[in-house]
């Protein structure tokens, strides 16, 4: 009787999971793949073909945007890591008690604010009539309004800002678990600040570095708002091209092919990083 009940409970618990993953994740992605692999011959008539992938891989604009998005996302991830690491270390090891809690909470604040609001804030700061432009004129570094928006550098500032939290939090968590006495022992054995950092602190923080980097990379790659609002005409982002094909041009087949390319790019890089560092998705995300 118990056994029988337990089986029913098992299937009752399994059903929502299977429905959710099946109907909203797996089947839609298979459908998207099938659509990207067909060509429209005439109204309502389709034939299987690779033409959209061929177009995506030969058209210079598409290909350049694809690689640009990948390289810029890697760059954004590296900058975020470099900026976040000292701060995370300060919060985890230098600050104590109340200060530590307050600083950690401060790091979480941008997360509670919509990405749109964050981007809007940067626009107010950096536009031609913005605060920074006025400040530069006031100090005397510029003699007329300066437009700081619509460049790659601005876009990078926005990308780094948006994903900072997802780097700081895992770093703080792993660094906190490093015992102070281990660092002291490193110094006692004659290590310099730099060698302690290289031999003890960074290896210990590696799990945090890996999961932070993966999440930040994914967020940058999939970002739409920041490149659209802060980036210039030349800083086209791959997500913008997907949007254009789907909503503006209604070319779903090509859009679906772009979507798949983005998915493959992100999977390959995430898989590569996990392989390189010998970790699993379960450890890193769960």
């Amino acid at each position, binding site marked *: 009787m118990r056994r029988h009940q337990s089986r029913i409970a098992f299937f009752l*618990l399994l059903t929502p999971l299977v429905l959710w993953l099946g109907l909203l994740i797996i089947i839609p992605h298979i459908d998207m793949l099938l659509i990207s692999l067909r060509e429209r011959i005439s109204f309502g008539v389709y034939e299987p073909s690779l033409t959209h992938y061929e177009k995506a891989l030969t058209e210079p604009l598409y290909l350049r945007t694809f690689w640009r998005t990948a390289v810029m996302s890697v760059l954004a991830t590296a900058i975020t890591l470099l900026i976040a690491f000292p701060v995370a270390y300060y919060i985890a090891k230098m600050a104590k008690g109340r200060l530590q809690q307050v600083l950690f909470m401060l790091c979480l604040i941008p997360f509670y604010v919509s990405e749109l609001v964050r981007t809007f804030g940067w626009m107010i700061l950096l536009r031609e009539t913005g605060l920074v432009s006025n400040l530069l004129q006031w100090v005397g570094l510029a003699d007329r309004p300066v437009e700081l928006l619509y460049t790659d550098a601005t876009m990078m500032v926005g990308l780094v800002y948006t994903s900072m939290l997802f780097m700081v939090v895992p770093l703080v968590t792993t660094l906190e678990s490093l015992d102070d006495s281990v*660092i002291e022992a490193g110094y006692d054995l004659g290590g310099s600040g730099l060698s302690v950092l290289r031999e003890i602190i960074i290896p210990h923080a590696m799990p945090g570095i890996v999961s932070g980097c993966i999440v930040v990379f994914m967020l940058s790659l*999939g970002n*739409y708002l920041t490149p659209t609002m802060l980036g210039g005409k030349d800083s086209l982002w791959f*997500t913008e091209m997907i949007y254009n094909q789907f909503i503006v041009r209604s070319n779903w087949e090509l859009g679906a092919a772009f979507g798949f390319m983005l998915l493959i790019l992100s999977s390959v890089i995430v898989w590569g990083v996990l392989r390189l560092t010998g970790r699993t998705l379960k450890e890193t*995300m769960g």
Partner: protein
Amino acid sequence: MIPTIPQSRAFRLVYGSYVALFFLYLVLPLTVVAVFAFNDSQFPSLPWEGFTWNWFFGDERPQIGIFHERGILRAVGTSAFVAACVAVLSVGVGTTNAFLFNRYEFRGKGLLYVLMLLPLVIPGIVLGISILVFSSTLANGIWDLAQMDIQALRPGLLLVILGQFSFITTIATLVISARLQKFDRTLEEAALNLGADRLTAVRTITLPFLAPAMIGAVVVAFLMSFENFNTTLMLVGSDAPLTIAMFDRLKEGSTPLLNAVSLLLMLGSSLLALLVILFQRRP
């Protein structure tokens, strides 16, 4: 580089100022957004034309405040409705998932667990288009079979809700699983020994233990849904949630009205976050 190891004054000074600068960078854009909500001008930028509450309460052109701006109010309502649906759905499924992974050993469990994590590593835009594509395939199929046009499968609120639900459920599952793992199962067994059936034991012992995590997950799901942009952008129909409505206005050029909306958003979400922290501190 820990407090017990002496460091030169200069080093500590440089390090301290770096961290201070970092936090300036963190709060600067948000502060600017908040401050310009009170600028008595058509533009959220310098020069500062004086302090006004008009962007909140004004009811005359050109300074119509939020509380008299129908479009924005309707968008807030839409967002709240979507967020409430997503929160309830994702925490419901998140709880059953947590029980499934915590209580049962079965073949394919590892694979299912990885699949469950997958929505976190799929870009939001791709998640959006895949659901858009599939729902339209379904709608077209139904039309071909039965000549019925199912409006719900066309871009609109149902698809927005499903799209957001599809990845927020993963987060809800992780939050609730973390708490369920700390549960002492002997408590449940004690209830069984005292004559309760399994369902009663779970209802009276396990669920109250899980309540803080479930409430936390509801709030996180609500906030994530309210702020979601990427997935929503691909699935939205004629009823735009707040982030989409604000995006459309921002493209046309901004007035301090957007700052006022943003400020209220910040206050609202900080308040919710604070409530959760206070609630979870309670023993």
